[in-house]
């Protein structure tokens, strides 16, 4: 049933003008500048009609799903849309990561008729945490998924509680919230929603045992989001994601969530939920929570397990698996991470550490220049555990014009002997690649920004042949 408020909305000439300008911009971008097509049309439309999001008609907000959180938004949104489409549902979605107001507006105007009526049955949107309350005020989706709320982009987000409050402000009693049973901040948001659906991963799968805590006297966890005392974790699937409890107030993960991934078989690449078997296209631990979230939403909304299985079998993540390039007799594997996001850096380090071969590790964290002022923050590396990576390396090459020494210092604190670390205070691709090529290990892992990876890949042939 379509939302009554939307049906009664009077479509004014300004909305229509904005819609058509946006549609024209989308068509133009498709031909001339595809990279601008996920955001620019909405930007232009919103300039003409700032309240444009409230003007779209034909949206059934019971069938509107917002996906927010620190990590995993894009993958979960893409997977969920893929599942619904595989099951024969029509879906309007923003699948390219444009998750602010303009990106949401772009997704809607592309899939709206010339009169502003959405053509699709389902609306599945990735939404930025800071924009969530404003977007939900305009588009009151009844389903909200929170992947996790962790340390991220501190120059914008400050601390996790700053973002927590913004997400909390978007939750109302008429919302069904899908929460991560093993991520404390996400789980704690269920207090503010009318209905909560918990997704999770059963223990023990890919479990990083809490033994690390006993070995590392400097290991830390996190405060309870309810009472602020220290949380206990029974183990970890990911950094600060695992079965947890607060001895002070009793807040804890449930023994079993509503939709729990079990029987993970990394070799067969399968898992089960409620006894039904599903293919597992990617085996890294963080993907399990994407599968759990998407399956929870799909199963809660009448999608058959067989359709979910078919979708998982054909799912391709937007970020791909590893991206690799050849360097002399070596293969350079690029592992993605986000700056100022220790969880993604830790996941990348875990991937590298899982390779038992001796290897070369190229690391270029670089300055943070998303917003003004650019700055030299690398402290998030101290929130990560480098010890496993440190054990299996022939050489670690730290590069970059400003923060290469800080990265080397972090490695020293992780116990890497200085003689295994080379520092290149440069962004010169050829110099960096020659240093890697001179090592004897054939496995080379690279952690850096995407734009730097692309430059290094482009220079790989030149560096080897010179």
């Amino acid at each position, binding site marked *: 049933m379509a939302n009554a408020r939307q049906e009664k909305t009077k479509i004014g000439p300004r909305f229509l003008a904005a819609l058509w300008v946006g549609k024209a911009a989308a068509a133009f971008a498709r031909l001339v500048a595809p990279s601008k097509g996920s955001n620019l049309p909405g930007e232009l439309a919103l300039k003409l009609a700032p309240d444009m999001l409230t003007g779209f008609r034909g949206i059934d907000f019971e069938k509107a799903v917002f996906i927010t959180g620190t990590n995993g938004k894009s993958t979960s949104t893409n997977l969920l849309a893929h599942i619904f489409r595989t099951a024969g549902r029509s879906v309007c979605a923003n699948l390219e990561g444009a998750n602010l107001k303009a990106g949401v507006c772009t997704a809607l105007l592309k899939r709206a008729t010339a009169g502003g009526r959405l053509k699709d049955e389902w609306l599945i949107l990735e939404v930025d945490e800071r924009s969530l309350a404003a977007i939900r005020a305009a588009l009151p989706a009844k389903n909200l998924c929170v992947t996790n709320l962790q340390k991220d982009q501190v120059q914008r987000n400050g601390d996790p509680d700053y973002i927590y409050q913004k997400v909390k402000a978007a939750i109302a009693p008429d919302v069904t919230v899908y929460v991560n049973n093993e991520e404390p901040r996400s789980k704690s948001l269920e207090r503010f929603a009318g209905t909560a659906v918990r997704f999770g991963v059963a223990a023990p799968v890919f479990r990083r045992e809490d033994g690390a805590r006993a070995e590392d006297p400097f290991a830390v966890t996190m405060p309870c989001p309810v009472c602020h*005392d220290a949380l206990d974790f029974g183990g970890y699937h990911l950094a600060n994601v695992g079965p947890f409890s607060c001895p002070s107030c009793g807040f804890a993960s449930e023994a079993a969530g509503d939709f729990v991934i079990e029987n993970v078989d990394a070799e067969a690449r399968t898992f089960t939920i409620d006894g039904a078997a599903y293919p597992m296209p990617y085996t890294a631990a963080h993907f399990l929570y994407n599968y759990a979230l998407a399956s929870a939403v799909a199963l809660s909304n009448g999608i058959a397990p067989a359709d979910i299985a078919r979708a998982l079998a054909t799912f391709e993540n937007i970020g791909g698996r590893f991206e690799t390039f050849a360097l002399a007799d070596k293969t350079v594997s690029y592992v993605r991470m986000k700056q100022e996001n220790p969880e993604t850096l830790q996941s990348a380090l875990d991937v590298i550490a899982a390779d038992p071969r001796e290897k070369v590790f190229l690391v270029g964290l670089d300055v943070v220049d998303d917003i003004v002022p650019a700055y030299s923050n690398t402290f998030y590396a101290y929130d990560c555990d480098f010890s496993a990576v440190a054990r299996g390396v022939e050489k670690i090459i730290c590069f970059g014009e*400003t923060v290469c020494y800080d990265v080397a210092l972090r490695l020293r604190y992780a116990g890497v002997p200085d003689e295994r670390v080379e520092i290149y205070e440069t962004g010169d691709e050829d110099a960096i690649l020659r240093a890697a090529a001179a090592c004897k290990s054939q496995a080379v892992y690279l952690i850096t920004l995407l734009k730097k990876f692309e430059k290094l890949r482009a220079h790989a042939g030149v560096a080897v042949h010179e």
Partner: protein
Amino acid sequence: MNNGPEKRCWNVLWMLPDILCLHGGRGDAMALARQAETFGACIDMRRVSRLSEHIDFLWADLLLFGPGELAALPAVRDALWKEQGALDEYLAAGKGVFCTGTTGALFAKETHRADGSVWEGLGALDMVCRERDMPYGDDLVFRAPGLDRAVCGVQIQMVDTELAEGQAPLGDVLYGRGNGAGSGGAAAAEGAVRTGLVWTNALGPVLAKNPWFTLWLMKRLLPGGEALPETDDDDVSVQWGLETESARAIWLFNEKKGKPHASET
């Protein structure tokens, strides 16, 4: 301090590290231990893990507070209040406290939240904090009195801090925002200090990136610390090559940006 036959050892209480756990602050605990070892001393570090846990102020030579969320600080304050004045006695005795980041608000007279609420701090530092509408992040370089090298870090500023007249800052800002908004020259102030209590906005972790600052702190805050070597000791400088190069590279980076002032931020 336990003066053993061969090795000096200081007792450090790492305060609520699972709660005050932001911004790589655990690196400061690592740095204290490592730097002490560099000077032939040692740190016996124990955690105060939970809010309800008894805090053994008598045992401690130094309390280490890492950066935490503003939302958690009232609970931390209550945990310290329950010790019935023991912290006041500890501070009155001139014993050491080192605190970084937003956790400085814990020691302020009061903090004004963005929602209009006000909560009372421990009042050990004569200053008032005001939550910012938006976080502010940048590099931060400052110079502390008696320290011949600049201290280099970054700051993630959730509150602006106004020092009362007579409240000494920790140092003067060379680059960055320091304590932030304030009238006149207040923008140039960084951190605050009261006898054995030192608070800085600088993260990094600041003690890992600036071993000369770690030594400066140890000499001032730890009993018998004045016997530690001077920062211009040649042997020590050699060991600080990596940190020195880091400070140089970041100084060059900051020079290209110019110097922000409170009015611009």
